[in-house]
Each structure stands twice: as C-alpha cells, then as structure tokens.
C-alpha cells in the first residue's frame, strides 16, 4: 500500500458502528438467546440433581465431606509399594492404591511401547511368515475385549499348580498359583545410592551432549562422547557402589513348607493385569507405528540413500523424525488408554485406586466422595500425560517459518 494511502483520512475513519437490533434476524441476539436457553436448561438439570442428592443424603443420614480420610481403614492390601497396615488411615490406603495404579501404568506404557514397536515393524517385514504372524497377533488381540483377556490370563495363572508342584522353567524361577518367584539382589543402601548416581550421571550426560552439539555447531568438530558416557553411566554408579562396601548377595526363593521363602514375587493379579494390558495395547501401538512408517514417503528413503547415509542413519535421522510426527498424537491416546484401562484391575482383584476407593465407599457409604476421588485421580494422571506428550509433540514438530 503506498504511503499516501495511509495518510488518506478515509482509512483513519473507524468502521460504522452497528448497534444491536432487538430482532430474531440479528445473529448476535439469536446466539445470546440460544446460549441463555441452553445454559439455563443445563443449569436447571444440574440444580435438580444436586437438590435431589442433598435431600436423599439427608433422608438416608449419609455423612458428607472428606472427614473419613483420617479414620482407620481396616482394609487389608496385598501389595503395597509403601509400608501399609490395615491400622492406617483411608488416606494412606488410597495413596497405596494410586501408587499401584501408577506402577502398572508406567511399566505397562514402557513394555507395550517396546512390544508394539517390534510388532509394528515386524508387520512391515519382508519375511512373509513374520509379517503374517504379526498381522494375526494384531487382528486377534484387537478384536477381543480387554476385560475378557484379563479374565483369561487370570484364569490361566490360577490354573497353575500350587507351590509344591511349581513349574520351574529355569534357574530359581518358579511359576505357581501364588505368582512368579524369582531371585533378586538383597537390597542394601549401597544399591539405592548407585541408582541415584546412575540418574545423576544420565542427567550430566544429557547436559554434556548438549554442550558438545553446541561446540559442533560452532567449530564443526564433534568431541567424542562415548568415553564420557561410559564413565558417567557405568563408572560413577560402580564407584559409588564400591565406595559403600560393594555389598552383593542373591536372594533366591526356596520352598519351605507350603510356600516359598525369599526372592522377589510378582503376584498373579499384577502379572495377569500387566500381561493383559501390554498384549492388548501393543496391538494398537503396532498399528500406529506401522501407519507412521508407511506415512513417510518412499522418496525420503531414496533421497537419504542418495546422500550416502547408511540404512541405520536413514532410519534414525530421516525416517523416524518424520514418522514420529505422525505417531506421537495417537500414541498419546494409547498411553491414556493404558492408564484408564488399568482400572479394570478391580475385576481380577489387583488393588489399584478404583478397587480401594470402591471398598472405601462400600465401607463408609460415602459414594459421592469415593467416585469423586477416582475421577480426580484419573483426570490428574490423564492431564499430566497429555501435557507431557503435547510438550514432546511441540518439541519434535516441524519448525515452520
């Protein structure tokens, strides 16, 4: 636009103001009226339900409020990640439930991502048998209800023989109807310290890698990273462990009487839940991974090859970053699904938050509070996963200028 056109007084003039005509033909009036009507209707229904509830609570003399959280729960919990006895409060019992939910969700997400990616790539394999088996796996597992699969695995676990006739596939690993027993390191403070050192080393390595990349950008020479990686990931934890006396003892399960002593245990409930969740979700993730890889144009492989990149470099530098953009959003919803589906634990007796909140509401009669707790927990977890994955998605998104 030429300079003198802006100076033209006609451009400085504001658009004519249009007053609101009180007429049904005016879209503004219409939308305001509709909104008032709809909000009024919804508000009325909510008010009606709330007032009914209030009256019902009064009539049935049901207490309200979260005061029950501080009372003694008296409900036994088979597996807890933090010390817990039935003499503890409801609040602590619910915390145990939340941790149990998070445990199965986190392990499930990691395992199903690995298994799903493997199966998704297997379905694209040039080996006909491998591709067909992967396809059969996906079709079969996707088309059966998860709850049915959980009950199936649980029935299978319960069908295992008792501890005295336990199946012993190898070493000191025992499968029985009491769960899976396997040897584990006798845990000492030194091991915890080594684990902390590993986390610190990883963080340091990430920072170092960033500095090296910056130096590569500046000078064109990339310093060698692998000696640092070796030192930080292996050397540092080993040094910490050795400094604290290098304790090492294997705690193997031994049959004593009617049950096993020692070793680590995976309960049948947890095993069935994790197995069901991972196998089911992996089928969906496999399809997402396959679609993501197929979505990258063949020309990208060819162009990468023309640049002289090796097959691995082509996949890592060219194909995967593009496939990830397609994969991440549906993957996010699968992660949310795992978390929400872990609530099916209640059907096979794994004590997650739903199971414990359900027992709580049966014991106290405070249904509204119990369900509110379940919903609040899942909303929090869901929103956290969404936020994290949206952040990650924005990070890897195509930077358009």
């Amino acid at each position, binding site marked *: 636009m030429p300079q003198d056109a802006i100076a033209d007084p006609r451009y400085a003039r504001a658009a004519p103001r249009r007053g609101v005509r009180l007429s049904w033909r005016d*879209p503004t009036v219409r*939308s305001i009226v*509709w*909104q008032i009507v*709809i*909000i009024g209707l*919804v508000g009325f229904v909510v008010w009606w*339900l709330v007032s*009914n*509830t209030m*009256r*019902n*609570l009064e*009539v049935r003399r049901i207490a309200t409020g979260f005061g029950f959280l501080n009372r003694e729960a008296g409900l036994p919990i088979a597996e807890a990640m933090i010390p817990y006895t039935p003499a503890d409060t409801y609040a602590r019992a619910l915390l145990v439930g939340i941790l149990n939910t998070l445990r199965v969700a986190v392990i499930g997400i990691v395992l199903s991502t690995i298994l799903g990616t493997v199966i998704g790539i297997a379905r694209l394999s*040039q*080996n*006909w*048998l*491998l591709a067909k*088996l992967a396809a059969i796996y996906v*079709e*079969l597992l*996707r*088309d*059966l*209800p*998860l*709850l*049915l699969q959980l*009950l*199936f695995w649980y*029935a*299978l676990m*319960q*069908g295992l023989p008792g501890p005295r006739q336990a199946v012993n596939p190898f070493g000191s690993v025992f499968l029985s109807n009491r769960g899976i027993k396997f040897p584990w390191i006798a845990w000492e403070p030194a091991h915890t310290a080594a684990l902390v050192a590993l986390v610190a080393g990883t963080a340091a390595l990430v920072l170092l890698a960033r500095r090296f990349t910056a130096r590569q950008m500046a000078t064109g020479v990339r310093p060698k990273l692998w000696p640092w990686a070796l030192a930080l990931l292996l050397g540092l934890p080993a040094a910490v462990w050795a400094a604290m006396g290098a304790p090492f003892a294997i705690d193997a399960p031994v049959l004593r009487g009617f049950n096993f002593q020692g070793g680590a245990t995976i309960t049948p409930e947890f095993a069935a839940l994790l197995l069901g969740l991972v196998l089911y979700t992996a089928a969906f993730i496999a399809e997402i991974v396959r679609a993501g890889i197929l979505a990258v144009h063949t020309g990208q492989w060819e162009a990468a090859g023309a640049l002289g990149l090796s097959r691995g470099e082509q996949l890592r530098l060219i194909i995967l970053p593009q496939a990830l953009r397609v994969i991440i959003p549906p993957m996010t919803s699968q992660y949310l699904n795992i978390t*929400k*589906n872990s*609530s*099916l634990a*209640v*059907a096979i007796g794994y004590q997650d938050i*739903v199971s414990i909140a*359900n027992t709580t*509401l049966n014991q106290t009669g405070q*249904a*509204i509070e119990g*369900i509110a707790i*379940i*919903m609040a927990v*899942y*909303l929090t977890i*869901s*929103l956290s996963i969404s936020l994290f994955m949206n952040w990650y998605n924005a990070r890897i998104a195509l930077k358009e200028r």
Partner: protein
Amino acid sequence: MTPPPAQSATLGANGMPVPSEEPRRPPVLSVGLLGWLRANLFSSWLNTAVTLVLAYFVISWALGLISWGVINAVWDVPGTGAQVDTSACRAIRGEGACWALIGEKYRFILFGLYPFDEQWRPALVVVIFVALYVVSAMRRFWNRWLGLVWIAALTVIGVLMWGGVFGLRFVEQERWGGLPITLILSTFGIAFAFPLSILVALGRRQTSMPAVKALCVVYIELIRGVPLISLLFMASVMFPLFLPEGMNIDKLLRAQVAIILFAAAYLAEVVRGGLQALPRGQYEAADALGLSYWQKTGFIVLPQALRLVIPPLVNTFIGMFKDTSLVLIIGIFDLLNTAKTSIIEPAWQGFGIEAYLFVSAIYFVFCFAMSKYSQDLEAEFNRHRRR
C-alpha cells in the same frame, strides 16, 4: 565412405564392449512357488534363520493346541445339572480341554437366566440384531428408510424380550442375560450416542456461542479423562441418589445411560475431526447460498464430514462393543459375565479357559466383521487417492 568397424556387433548399447568370454548364468527364478519362497522367506541368511525359528514355534504351538483342544479334549461327561460328574475333565486337566462345559452350559452363557422354554425369543433377537447390522452395512440401503427399519426392529426386539403382549409370557428384565444384553447395550448405545455426539461436536465448534462451546469442551474432556468404570460405578451407586425419592430406574438402563454418555464423548471427537477436515469453502459456499445454520449443517456439512470419518466411526463402534463387557463389574449379566458365572459351580470350577475361549470366539466374530468392513470401506473411499 568408410565402412563401420567390424567389431560393432560386440559393443553394447552404450558403446562398451560386452564381456563374452563366459556364458552368463540364468537369472534366479523369480516366479512360481519357488521364486515366491525365495523372495519372501529365504532372501538372506538372516531371513532364513527368522523363518526357520518362527516355523518351529508355529508348528510346535499348533501341535500342542490340536492335542489340547481336539485329541485329548473331553467332549461329553456323564450326568447333568447338579449331578454332573466332571472327574473325566479333572483327570485330564492341563493336557486336554473340557468342551463338555460348553455342551452343558452354552444355553446359560448365551441367554443367561432367561426362562429355558422361552429362549427362542432371545435367539430370535440375536438374529434380528445381526440382520439389522447387515442391512445397515450395505450402502444400497443408506437412505431415509433405514431409520424406520431401525425403529421397527428395536421395537420388535423390545416386544420379544419383555413379552407380555401377543400371548408372549412376560419376562422381567432381571432375568435377561448373555449375548442379547451385550447386543442391546452396544446397539442402543450407538443409536443414542451417535446423534448426541453430532450435537456435541457441532457445539464444540460454535465460536459465536462461547458458553455452549465451553459446555461441550468440559463434557468431552471430563468424560474422556476418566475410565468407563468410574462412570459405571456412578451409574450403579451414585445415580439412585440423584433422583427424587420413589423414582427408580433399573440397573440395566442406568448402565446404558453411562455407556451412551461415555461413547458420545469419544464419537464427538471423531465427528469433530470430520468437521475440521471439511474445506472452509464448503461452509462459505453454503453461507453464500443463504442457507440457515441447520440447512447448512444438514445438507452441506454433515453429509460430507461424516463420510470422511466413517472408518474411525466404525472403529469407535468396535471399541464400544468391547467396552460393554465392563458392565460385568457392576453385576449385569452380559455375555462375559454369564461365561464367568458358568464356572462358579464346584463341579465346573477351574475350567475358565474353555468358557472364555467360547465367548472369545463370539466377540471375535462380531468385532472382526466390523473391522474388516471398516477396512474395506476405507479402501473404497481412498480409491481416488491411489495411483
């Protein structure tokens, strides 16, 4: 004029001499069974190793499955009802399947506690449901009559299940069970959730009505953020508190409402995807024609937007069909719950695998048919994009 060089016959098309000392070997066979095997199973040593390992596992599993499910299986046990003698099954446990359980209990698993003599009615209901699905899947019948067919079919189903008219014995809802419950929950769920989801999806795109938009966003995100179980618990323990005293709604209907509300939120997101994928020009052209909002939506937007999202819609329907099994947790006798209950008698305890495999086959047939249908439809809709 010089004659061309005599050696020109041994020069290739690019002018390079063709090595002719050795006879060339015939190309590797690339057609026929042998060629196919070589290309798809034994193309490299790694591929060959993978094929051999997998073939070993497949064959050994298949043999194990045949010996468990067919050769060693027990097909019949003496006695019936409470006097049944399952010792033959117990003796072979772990090595053979006990299909006698299915022979004894299949009527219970399929129809629950519905009166035994009247079980032709739920059987007919299942047939009507299947016919309804088949008719709805054929594009030839996608017209306004389909809605009427649905209303008629659902009415007939109600009459058959309840009875009480036309000389049919009245059967109270507590005695329904099995496959009809699963089909009722999923079919009525879709029939009500789908229209609701369209309204919610349209509401979420109303930029001119912020209050309506906010309402729809809160509804969708709230429902999608919590598991279905929490809604079912709400329906089973909290819902009675919501209603005025004396008013009561039976459990099945409450679960149905929870499933509808749950499914509508997921379907709304699918429909919204279709609304967003539609080019802006379509909206503007409809406005330019002077159509009202509902004319624009009904004639221009929805027919195109819904067409775009039919495959994901069918996938959501499959998910819903599977999710109806969750009503087991609040004690409604759907197909999965009858299977779980069929092994509760001491005589049949421990034969869960057989019962679950039986219902798995039923679930698989329904879901696989829907999933194949959705894939075919997707391929057909994308045909114009193929090259």
